[in-house]
């Protein structure tokens, strides 16, 4: 099971890095317009996250999913993929652990999947 986890982790991380790099180049090259112009960021990143959202009208929670046409939110989506890598690896591990008869470990892994899925869904932060 550890070998399978390592394989999934390797593949998912490589994909995450590649997508992040491409999305970042798209962002800073100006090939796709960002929601918040890059030139304005030095005046805005001194604000707290809440005041930044107020000042720019940037969405919180999952609202950014509807903004993927903008380079900055496309890049955010790419970065957010890193937050899904562990979830994917654990989700793959659960059936393997049950198949190996490791029920206690399987339930721990399942609980971790639920925690990560709830965090990703915004359950703890009103992100739905």
């Amino acid at each position, binding site marked *: 099971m550890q070998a399978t986890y390592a394989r999934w982790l390797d593949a998912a991380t490589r994909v995450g*890095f590649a997508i992040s790099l491409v999305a970042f180049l798209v962002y800073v090259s100006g090939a796709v317009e960002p929601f918040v112009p890059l030139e304005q960021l*030095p005046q805005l990143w*001194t604000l707290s996250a809440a005041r930044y959202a107020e000042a720019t009208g940037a969405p*919180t*929670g999952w609202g950014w999913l509807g903004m993927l046409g903008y380079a900055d939110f496309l*890049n955010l989506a790419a970065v957010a993929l890193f*937050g899904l890598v562990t979830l994917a690896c654990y989700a793959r591990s659960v059936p393997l652990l049950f198949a190996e008869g490791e029920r206690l470990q399987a339930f721990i892994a399942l609980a971790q999947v639920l925690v990560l899925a709830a965090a990703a869904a915004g359950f703890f*932060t009103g992100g739905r």
Partner: protein
Amino acid sequence: MEVTAVPWWVWPIALAAVGFLIGVVAVLAGIGGGVLFVPIVGSFFPFHLDFVRGAGLLFALAGTLAAGPQLLRNGMASLRLVMPLGLAGSICSVAGAIVGLNMTADLLQALLGALVIAIAIVIWSTRSAEGGLVDPDALARMLKLEGKFTDPAAGTRIDWKTHRTLGGFAAFGAIGFLGGVFGLGAGFANVPALNLLMAAPLKVAVGSSGLIISIINSSAAWVYIHRGAVLPLLVVPAVLGVMLGSRLGARLLERVPAQLVRWLVIIVMLAAGVRALLRGTGLWI
């Protein structure tokens, strides 16, 4: 020149450079780079601490995800050990992230300063134990927190077991909470908790620590993402920088005296900690 008048593109380049240096130093000093990123960038860059902590979590997350596969393949990280402790840390890190995002920046900065100074002292004073065959407690037996790995340096196979499992859960709950509040990777605390408290061999503790950071930070990162506290312009250059720096650090590992680097890290952390403390208390803005 006002910092807001500096062109935007200067900052990602500066972050990539800082990430690179952190990558080199972190490998040489044997600590996670995440613990250096937030105090340094939070104290010496103009970004609000919300964005620095969001970037810090993803910075530590990306680094540990990249190292994870190799650590798992060579047996230095034990998934069996990581899973229950990571779950405790992960739940507490979400709580920590929510608490952190509801605190004022000044209070956070002052607390971060105090914490970073304390971490520098921990790094300075921590010694390692060999670990190995201890008498496992009932919970460790139930969770089968044991394993074996071959140490290529010594050419020996080591069978290991752990004990003090409840203490381990409490330690990783606290580590996860602090990691969530301050956006830190917590390798500095994971390794002593696994090695000194639970008696895992040092190499297994170091390897498993990275994997635990990847689990803990994944949960907390989502809280920051959903609250709008992640600016990709800060995250991606730092991540790319640290990846390149880590490679150079690994190459330099045999040539640079580890003790010298360790002292360098302690001095940098003390400087960043004092700066954060003074900034948070309003004594030096």
